[in-house]
């Protein structure tokens, strides 16, 4: 019944989704693309003249003093910092999240719900508040430093706040649930008899983990990594508050162009570039997993 219907009028059902896609995703994206090919207005906005200047300036810079053209190493430094911190955040959440997810998945079913519930609690709190909470913990006169000084481990406070480490701690904390949940879903479906089989065949614990567990829960690892990596790359609030603003990440750099920099086209071009990086990363992941699947089959 449902099937025969969908053959004829089923497409009608997709109209809400289509409208959402057109007005919510494709439309705004198109505006961003168009803006990236226009001239910046004097104080904000754009002037409707076609130019590739913004795109040129993403990759190259004219020396502001002698006009020579060179690659934009300031931009490269900012990209590289964003990429590095996002990869480190993904790794950190994985290293913490995997044992967590494993622990929850191996609990009796009636207790799992409670553990998962605890994992989701931070989501109820606004991102800003969670970030300021971390700030309270790591600042010079904060919880961590006071505690360490009280213990006598250190004499003077550790300067953690306003460093890349602070940004890493902040992002790992904020995005951890996004890693744990897909990992849990994957491990939950895992057939633990396979481990016993592995041991029966004299595999070491490490070998069981590497050759049996990880390949099977791989989709969960990939999903979790994507969920953490993508928002980390565009992170704005965490680097702004915990990084001290001395060194920009991509999100802050884009904001600068739309705000004080008064150059919307460059901001638009940078946003598109961010999108391209994310898409490339996603495609790479998808490819990597599908190749693996073929091997497994």
């Amino acid at each position, binding site marked *: 019944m449902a099937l025969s219907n969908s053959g004829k009028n089923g497409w009608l059902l997709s109209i809400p989704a289509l409208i959402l896609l057109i007005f919510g995703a494709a439309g705004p994206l198109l505006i961003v693309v168009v803006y990236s090919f226009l001239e*910046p207005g*004097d*104080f*904000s*906005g754009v002037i409707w003249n076609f130019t590739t200047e913004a795109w040129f300036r993403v990759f190259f*810079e004219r020396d*502001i*003093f002698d006009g020579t053209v060179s690659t934009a*190493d*300031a*931009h490269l*430094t*900012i990209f590289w910092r964003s990429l590095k911190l996002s990869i480190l955040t993904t790794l950190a959440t994985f290293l913490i999240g995997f044992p967590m997810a494993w622990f929850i998945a191996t609990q009796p079913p009636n207790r799992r719900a409670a553990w998962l519930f605890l994992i989701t609690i931070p989501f109820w709190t606004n991102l800003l508040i969670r970030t300021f909470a971390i700030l309270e913990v790591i*600042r*010079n*006169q904060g919880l961590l430093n006071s505690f360490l000084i009280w213990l006598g481990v250190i004499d003077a406070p550790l*300067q953690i*706040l*306003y460093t890349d480490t602070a940004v890493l701690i902040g992002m790992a904390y904020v995005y951890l649930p996004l890693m744990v949940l897909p990992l849990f879903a994957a491990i939950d479906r895992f057939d633990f008899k396979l481990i016993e089989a592995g041991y029966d065949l004299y595999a070491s614990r490490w070998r069981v983990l590497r050759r049996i567990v990880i390949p099977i829960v791989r989709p969960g690892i990939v999903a979790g990594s994507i969920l953490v990596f993508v928002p980390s790359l565009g992170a704005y609030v965490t680097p702004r*508050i915990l990084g*001290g*603003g*001395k*060194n*920009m990440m991509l999100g*802050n*750099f884009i904001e*600068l*162009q*739309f*705000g*004080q*920099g*008064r*150059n919307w086209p460059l901001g638009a071009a940078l946003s598109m570039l961010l999108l391209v990086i994310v898409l490339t990363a996603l495609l790479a992941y998808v490819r990597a997993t599908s190749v693996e699947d073929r091997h497994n089959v």
Partner: protein
Amino acid sequence: MKLVFTSALALAAATAAHAEGELNIYNWGNYTNPKLIEKFEQEHDVDVTITDFDSNTTALAKIEAGGHGFDIVVPTHSYVQIYVGKDLLMKPGIPEMENYDNISDNWKNVDWDPNREYTVPWQWGTTGVAVNTSAYDGDINTSAIWLDTPEELVGKVNVVPEMQDVMNLAVMYMGGEPCTDDRDLLREVRDKLVEAKSDWMSMDYGMTEKMSNGDVMASVNWNGSTFRARLNNPDVAYGYPKEGYIVWMDNVAILKDAQNVENAKLFMNFIMDPENAALISEFARYANGIDGSEEYMPEEMKSAPEIVVPDELKAAGKFTSSCPKEVQDLYTAIWTDLQK
């Protein structure tokens, strides 16, 4: 689709029905005394809504986009002519208002708004340096605090990420005029900033709190914020860089597409009353440009070193305008180089 339209209409109707007795103010965050608003609401039976912005560019972009629903906006002096040029403000007939004469004579006819056609004063202040004197007891009336950081303050200095102010302060420190397009000088400014940055701890806002609790020992900062920090921590002091510091005024304007024009005019007149202007200053700790408001201010406001500029440093204060596009591009390029 139809459903969407009907509910939008219903919403519009609902808003219109409540429009009487409303006033929507768009102002900087943590800047408006709740007592002032309460008093206005009671005296005039008006419901006031305040929305915060964090920078002039944000405010301008939002207002230009339209559909904001604000009646009043509070731009800095350097932005008033931009609003006027874009035809965003109305002339509410300020000189005819009952309390107009209370504006101090030196704030009545100002460059950015001759004869006060569009705006009335909200608060004025300076951008200089805040220093915790327990960490450094040398001369603080200099931008060397953050551009040639004394040893005692290395690694403990903050610079607020306010591009225009910071760039102009650095340009003046290197001997130039604000918004200069002298490229040789700008090259020196860039080198100076990049070199100085290694001595900084952060580039962040929120110095009222961070100077108070000693997280930051010195910062480029606004006078009122430093005043608030000093009230929490007596070691905090404010310096007026002798190489040049920035003077600014934030002004109250009524938007051309305001829905509650009469209430907005009432508010303008209301804040030019010395007693009410004193409420503004009592909260944010800046001077207000209204004669006679000192009388109603707390005692510590009248003699505060953050408010009363020392005579010998008065000449170093500069009213900056917003820089032309070419200079802005140079500033942004240097700024990007600095924060990469």
